[in-house]
């Protein structure tokens, strides 16, 4: 009797799981597309700010320094707002946060058209846009991590390649400003940013949109299990095949709400098969997954999360410090040479056309190397952070040798090498974080890591400028970037020790 019941639900469950797996795969590409669009538009907006800068200075008035505050607020709030945004994401879910972010950006653009003074613009364009960008970024990044379990590195690299397209935004913006003035341009930009609303709708939440089919199967499994044995052992036996199917179908539910299990005695060391995708499952995350399964099966209404408002747990985690140290220094190493590449070419006597040629080559090489690095990382031939560390070391070595490049061919070679290694490590930042902490806690970790990176990003360009003023040569910028790139992987040496420390603490 029971076997027959087991078989029949099995078949449609398998079919359904295949169907949802296909749908889930399709939605993963939708998420990647959305992230790509976010990269194009956000980065494009940040980069074309320089064109608006000129228009603002002339027409709205204000000194150069005052107007550049707008740009600084916009780009730094993108990182600094991350912890706040991560809280919002956890409460509301990624999709509403992303739509909120798109709304903030579009609203900020539209509001800026009415601007009459620089402080107004600082708020409407700097603050609103910066906050909107960080909402969009956080939601998109975490959703990509949640959806693209198998090929995260490649999907991340694919989405990041959107940054390479931003060079198209500059002439487009210039054209718009010449035709419509800066107010008309901002109006049209507001409309373009609104396009992020439908693409945000592609970020389908994984848990709430669970089709009731497999949930019904889950109920069936629970019912049969309950019928046979009320013991925990029986429960876990009966539900193992169901759960693993469900997991592969929906690529593991991931709610961070520690909802209390409802009538089901879920065992803590749960299915290794289900958690196979997660590279470093912590005991907490497995507990969370089984408990959420329990609640769904019993069809209990979702309880209000009893989580603290701002989750400070990353700050107590040594893994977080390892990652943030590396993140901070690698960002410093990334931005500074790009800023000074063209200037260095100019001081060596090359024309500005050569300089922009170098920048174009750098952009293309970086995009290609991101894709390659992501593809290689996904094959899991070695741990992802080993590749990350290798890229960082090579980048540091290239930067230290950078000052030796004094002719155009050598500088071109340096640019290609530097862009290749930068692309390599940039593509792996998100996958490495996912490897280290898992997807459940990604929001809070990413939020805080971005916050600290934001401080570095704010300080980077002025620091580089100060270095130049102090030493009167760009050589120091490259040495500085090389030093940063070499400092950043040091923290990864402590990673195995930190993991052991964590496990020991968890077992106590």
């Amino acid at each position, binding site marked *: 009797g029971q076997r027959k*019941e087991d078989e*029949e*639900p099995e078949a*449609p469950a398998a079919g359904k799981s295949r169907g949802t797996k296909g749908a889930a795969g399709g939605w993963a590409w939708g998420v990647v597309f959305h992230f790509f669009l976010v990269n194009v538009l956000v980065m494009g907006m940040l980069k074309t700010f320089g064109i608006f800068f000129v228009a603002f200075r002339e*027409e709205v008035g204000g000194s150069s320094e005052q107007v550049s505050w707008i740009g600084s607020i916009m780009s730094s709030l993108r990182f600094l707002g991350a912890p706040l945004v991560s809280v919002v994401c956890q409460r509301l879910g990624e999709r509403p946060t992303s739509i909120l972010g798109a709304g903030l950006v579009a609203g900020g653009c539209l509001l800026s058209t009415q601007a009459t003074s620089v402080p107004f613009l600082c708020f409407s364009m700097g603050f609103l846009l910066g906050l909107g960008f960080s909402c969009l970024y956080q939601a998109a990044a975490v959703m990509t991590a949640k959806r693209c379990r198998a090929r995260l590195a490649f999907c991340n690299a694919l989405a990041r390649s959107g940054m390479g397209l931003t060079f198209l935004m500059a002439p487009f913006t210039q054209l718009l400003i*010449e*035709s*419509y*003035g800066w*107010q*008309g*341009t901002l*109006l*049209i930009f*507001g*409309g*373009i940013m*609104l*396009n992020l*609303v*439908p693409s945000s*709708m*592609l970020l*389908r939440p994984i848990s709430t*949109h669970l*089709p*009731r*089919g497999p*949930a*019904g199967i889950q109920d*069936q499994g629970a*019912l049969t299990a309950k019928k046979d044995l009320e013991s925990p052992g029986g429960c876990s036996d009966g539900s193992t095949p169901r759960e693993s199917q469900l997991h592969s179908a929906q690529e593991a539910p991931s709610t961070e709400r520690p909802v209390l299990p409802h009538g089901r005695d879920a065992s803590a060391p749960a299915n290794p098969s289900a958690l196979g995708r997660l590279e470093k499952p912590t005991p907490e995350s497995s507990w969370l997954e089984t408990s959420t399964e329990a609640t769904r099966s019993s069809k209990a209404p979702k309880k209000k999360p009893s989580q603290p408002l701002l989750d400070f747990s990353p700050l107590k985690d040594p893994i977080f410090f390892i990652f943030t140290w590396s993140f901070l220094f690698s960002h410093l190493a990334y931005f500074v040479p790009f800023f000074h590449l063209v200037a260095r070419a100019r001081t060596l006597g090359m024309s500005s056309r050569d300089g922009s040629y170098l920048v174009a080559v750098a952009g293309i090489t970086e995009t290609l190397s991101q894709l390659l690095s992501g593809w290689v990382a996904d094959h899991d031939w070695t741990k992802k952070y080993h590749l990350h560390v290798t890229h960082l070391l090579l980048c540091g070595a290239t930067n230290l040798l950078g000052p030796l490049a004094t002719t155009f061919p050598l500088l071109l070679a340096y640019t290609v090498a530097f862009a290749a290694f930068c692309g390599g490590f940039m593509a792996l930042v998100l996958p490495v974080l996912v490897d280290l902490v898992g997807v459940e806690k990604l929001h809070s970790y990413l939020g805080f890591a971005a916050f600290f990176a934001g401080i570095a990003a704010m300080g980077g360009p002025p620091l580089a400028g100060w270095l130049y003023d102090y030493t009167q040569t760009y050589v120091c910028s490259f040495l500085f970037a090389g030093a940063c790139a070499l400092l950043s992987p040091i923290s990864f040496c402590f990673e195995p020790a930190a993991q052991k420390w964590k496990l020991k603490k968890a077992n106590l």
Partner: protein
Amino acid sequence: GPDVTTQDLKPAGKENPSNVSVYEIVLSGVSGSPLERNISVASPTKVELSCKLDKNSQIKNPQVTWKKGSDTISHTTKSENSWSIQVTILDSSQLGSYSCILKGKQEISAVFHLQVPKIEGKDKPIITYEGDAAVMVCKTDYIPIAWTWYMTNGSKQVAINDSMPAKKYVINRQSANATRLKVLQLTKEDGGLYWCEATFQLGKSKGKLELKVLSIMAPLKPFVAIVAEVVIFVTTIFLYEWYSKKKEKRAGDEREFDQIERL
């Protein structure tokens, strides 16, 4: 080859105690189009224009003539390899083009253009919207006595002064060498060419600005088109999700019904 540069030439750095500015052109001896220099003179002053022959040039001992326009100037001074004239500029009649012609085997020449300072306006049109206010600024390197603004009405140039409605135009002198015209409550007719004229002791000079007044509809049309496209996308995705949710619910209900029946 020969270069035809038309930038303002600042004094060569040699200022004699009698406050004479010296401007010099070096000729290389290759014949071609004449070398030119523009010299801005704002107030009465004395200038010395000199043509110097490059050491490596082929021409030796040429015959040098200084001309203003087509009239020859007689009082020329010669030193080792340079020929110069002194010009006292008292009014606008002394401004013009002074050329030195060196005749040897070939004839080479250089021209100095003495003129009132140029005014920088704006090359690109200034874009404003109806109902908004436009600010136009004219700057120059020298200090003029007075500024006047003109707007073009059809083909005529009409001066903007007190006869114009006071609430429409506001002119103030931003600094000694800049002037600012603010046009309020713009309408379509306010678009067109505007001229700012600076009066110097030696003459007048004009700068050009173009004002374009767009209606608010102009950028609004693409904006509305984009918003419409966004709304279409949002509705499509919404409908798709609603439809697929209904389908799954129906399938789920059916299956549950079957299972309950079987039980």
